[in-house]
């Protein structure tokens, strides 16, 4: 009997259970889900503040434009009024 040869034969590797790999992978999933959630949170944190800033800037620009349009309208009305008064005085003077 060659003990060393017998030991090698007796200690041949045994295949892991058929669902072993699936069970290991299932145990890695919570970590994958966690990493995905962290990645999603980082993405949201990176995208949302610039988005909000852009929205506010656009809102301010719209308000400024509206105010300018209003100011120009008032000025136009005033100018029209002055022009009418000038014309009135000119007619009376003649």
């Amino acid at each position, binding site marked *: *009997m060659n*003990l*060393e040869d*017998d*030991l*090698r*034969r*007796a*200690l*041949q*590797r*045994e*295949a*892991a*259970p058929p669902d*072993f*790999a699936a*069970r*290991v*992978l299932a*145990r*890695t999933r919570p*970590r994958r889900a966690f990493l995905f959630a962290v990645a999603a949170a980082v993405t949201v944190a990176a995208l949302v503040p610039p988005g909000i800033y852009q929205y506010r800037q656009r809102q301010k620009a719209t308000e400024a434009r509206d105010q300018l349009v209003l100011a120009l309208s008032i000025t136009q009305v005033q100018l029209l009024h002055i022009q009418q008064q000038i014309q009135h005085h000119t007619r009376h003077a003649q």
Partner: protein
Amino acid sequence: MRLDFNRILADNQSLVFSLALRFLRDRAGAEELAQDVFLQLYQRLGRIESPAHATSWLRRAICHRCIDEARKRRFRPRVALEAVPEPSTEPVNPDPLLHDRLRRLIGELPDSARMVVLLRYQEDLDPTDIAGLLNMPISTVKSHLHRSLTVLRGRMQKQEICR
């Protein structure tokens, strides 16, 4: 480059599971320990440089986890090896009982000696590699091997006489 964990798992599951099973002689415990070791590897996959590095890391990890587990359980070779199914590979030896007896006798060796024998005859590692893996002097590895073989040979002969 991140390694393919699924591939590492497929390539090494037999190695890790077999070492744990032969050492603990407890199928459920071996599977749990093997799963834990693969999860540990998964968590540090970024630090693993190659498939060979992964294999070496897994072998080292399962050896140390097994020895720790045996200490925790204060493991004594009282669990019948009959509970452990036969290897899936076809036996080469015409006497399957011989393998059973050998595995049972290996299970009765002290923890360190048992792991040395498993690494030598299951994993076919030489004493230098075993010494590196288990952080023990090479002389201790050789001594474990020599004494284990003597013990196993003696017990096998004793059983032959008793039969």
